[in-house]
């Protein structure tokens, strides 16, 4: 688990960095619409109406993979991180177990939600 936290952490530096780059540098937060989200998820990062012009096309599969990996990594890293803060307060076995359940369930909910979002904008 501890190792996974590190691995996802390092992965997130790139994935989340990329996510920020796409949303804020390339597309721009004000320009997000359902239509261009569908475009990105279905066709990948391609040339279009961007703040910064994209010169290299990114294949659809790569973009989809990055989105789903980002989802999985960030949910795990975030929820496990917060759970660890709880454990560190040494609240006793019972609350520790409760916290583990709580964050596991929350993670699953978030993952499902994330996949649904992905599915909503996936229109080949």
């Amino acid at each position, binding site marked *: 688990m*501890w*190792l996974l936290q590190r691995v996802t952490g390092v992965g997130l530096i790139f994935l989340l960095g990329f996510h920020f780059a796409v949303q804020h540098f390339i597309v721009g937060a004000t320009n997000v619409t359902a239509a261009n989200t569908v475009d990105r998820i279905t066709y990948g990062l391609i040339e279009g109406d961007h703040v910064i012009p994209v010169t290299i096309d990114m294949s659809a599969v790569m973009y989809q993979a990055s989105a789903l990996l980002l989802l999985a990594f960030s949910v795990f890293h975030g929820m496990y991180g917060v759970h660890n803060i709880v*454990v*560190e*307060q*040494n609240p006793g076995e019972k609350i*520790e177990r409760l916290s583990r359940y709580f964050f596991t369930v929350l993670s699953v909910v978030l993952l499902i939600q994330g996949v649904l979002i992905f599915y909503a904008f996936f229109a080949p």
Partner: protein
Amino acid sequence: MATTQTESEADAATEVGSVELEVFRYVPEEDDEPRFESYTVDAEEGTTVLDALIEIRDTEDASLTVRHSCRMARCGSDALYINGKQRLACNTLVKEVGEPVKVEPLPRFDVIRDLVVDMEGFYDRMEAVEPWFQPSHEPETGEEFLQSPENRKNIDTVLDCIWCGACTSSCSPAGTDDRFKGPAALAKAYRFYKDEREGEEARKNRLRLLEDAHGIYRCHTQFNCTEVCPKGISPTEAIMEMSRDATKQKLAFWRR
């Protein structure tokens, strides 16, 4: 940190004049709440904080309680929180910390009286890592367990630990999580972990002992322990090495 003895002795005669100390006072029979008391003492170049405290006790207020013994940074009885940092009072010159000298008992420890804290829990933690030599077999008559000088080099620094509790007092995970053994105990564990005379089995056992959710992974590399250690030990480094090894061990297990 280490002020050389000769240096302070040579300057010992030079007065630096009077120094103000603010000392944490708590006498359970009299006070409901702790308070701070100001004292002024004459200090010389080489006056340590412990000297000043003894001076106060001898001349101004005999009720002041402070634990000390060797006065030479060997016994570890007088670790205190002096001007924002855990230090040994006997190893800290009054002039090096600046005025007023604010003296408190170790944070995260319970206070028994004045500057004296309850070390019981700290000793429990030290004991929890089984700080005794566990050879793979009983020695035969006349048999000695010899350690190679190279192997001994690994533990040169951690062996210097004087159980003063400064590091454990500085560590916030150790403060919130009683089951986390804290830097001192983990550095102690490292001392045995690195001792190759105990053999592979014992090595693995020692790691296993530290590996649960409240074990080595609770270290958040605050480096406070390393900063405050009066003996220049780096518990952080020891913990990092053990957690790295523990992870490696687990990975090797998966491969099989």
